[in-house]
């Protein structure tokens, strides 16, 4: 259907689309409503991890027992989206496809090495989230491609994580900086939100490091990724400073859990 309609636009939860229409930015006439398609709201879990349909809501990811157990970092990040009422409607497919650099879930999906299943008449392909965010508000999806699932690998036993979000305007506002940290084995994975035109990812091997050495290494690997956009939530200088504070905060927190485990 996406290939036969003129200028089609996928309608997920509509929470981003409706705002763009009200702002006069979006003029689409052919919405393809995903609500009518059965099976897109399913979550399944196996030994490898989770598979969630694109119409699972952010609130579903927050509250589902399997998500909380298998990928608590993802569940925590979805809990930070907007407010509970918007989370009831916002879909995880729409959240990814929206491609905004400040979204909270992408940093967690980057750290967890999630993959996006993208489907069109040409078939289904698997896109690592680490290659999904191409440029400012631009994703690797082709215009006729649908997000048909998100796959999240299970967090390994003995791993530790943190999701930290800072907001400079009000408590449940968009972030001025957000970070997801996953320490698995000795590898430290870091996803950054709101600190560059796209969500960004970095990792390093922390073998033999103390907590302070890990913090220093983290600050070093994120430094070249920072390219904040100045806006009402803060200047470039402010966001660069926040990046250091938030990454230190998250790495230290996760490291402590690792020590206590």
């Amino acid at each position: 259907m996406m290939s036969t309609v003129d200028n089609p636009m996928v309608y997920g939860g509509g929470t981003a689309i409706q705002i763009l229409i009200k702002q006069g930015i979006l003029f689409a006439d052919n919405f393809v409503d995903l609500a009518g398609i059965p099976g897109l709201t399913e979550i399944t879990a196996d030994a490898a991890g989770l598979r969630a349909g694109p119409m699972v809501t952010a609130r579903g990811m927050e509250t589902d027992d399997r998500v909380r157990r298998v990928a608590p970092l993802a569940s925590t990040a979805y809990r930070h989206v907007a407010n509970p009422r918007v989370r009831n409607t916002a879909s995880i497919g729409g959240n990814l496809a929206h491609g905004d650099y400040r979204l909270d879930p992408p940093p967690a999906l980057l750290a967890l090495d999630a993959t996006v299943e993208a489907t069109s008449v040409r078939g289904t392909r698997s896109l690592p989230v680490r290659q999904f965010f191409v440029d400012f508000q631009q994703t690797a999806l082709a215009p006729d491609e649908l997000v048909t699932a998100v796959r999240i690998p299970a967090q390994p036993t003995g791993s530790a994580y943190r999701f930290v979000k800072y907001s400079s305007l009000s408590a449940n506002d968009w972030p001025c900086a957000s970070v997801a940290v996953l320490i698995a084995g000795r590898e430290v994975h870091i996803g950054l939100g709101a600190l560059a035109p796209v969500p960004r990812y970095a990792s390093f091997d922390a073998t033999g490091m103390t907590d302070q050495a890990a913090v220093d290494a983290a600050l070093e690997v994120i430094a070249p990724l920072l390219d904040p956009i100045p806006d009402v939530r803060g200047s470039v200088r402010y966001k660069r400073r926040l990046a250091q504070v938030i990454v230190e905060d998250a790495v230290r927190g996760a490291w402590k859990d690792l020590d206590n485990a």
Partner: protein
Amino acid sequence: MNEITLIVNGTPHRTRVSDSALLLDVLREQAGCTSVREGCGVGACGACTVLVGETSVSSCLALATRYDGANITTAEGLDENDDVVSAFADCGAAQCGYCIPGFVLMTRELLAEHPRPTSEQITEHLEGNICRCGTYPEIRTAVSTAAERRSPR
């Protein structure tokens, strides 16, 4: 135009709506539910909250056609003796009252999930509702009072 049926507070309303009609406007203009209000229009204030089944929805961001056949509760559907409504009244939570229907409906959703919410759970669940008059302390007391009335210790 589409013909849809909304079951509003138990009563079916058959109405004709355009593809782009918002649930907020249909409820206000065609179902007469003026307790559903527009504040921000972008999902951030909660004045337009309705319950679809048991689930809160910002009607300002909701396409009406999507809710064909849905069971919708607005503040008009709640009895004045309802435990949440009466707690809000008894605690003096309303000043101008514009925001209160939204807070009441969010509180019903909260109590359905957590009959005895902690103060943190109250904050987290109501964080997307704004009261311009700033009666937040009274609103918090009303939520605790409603929880107490609904499921006494």
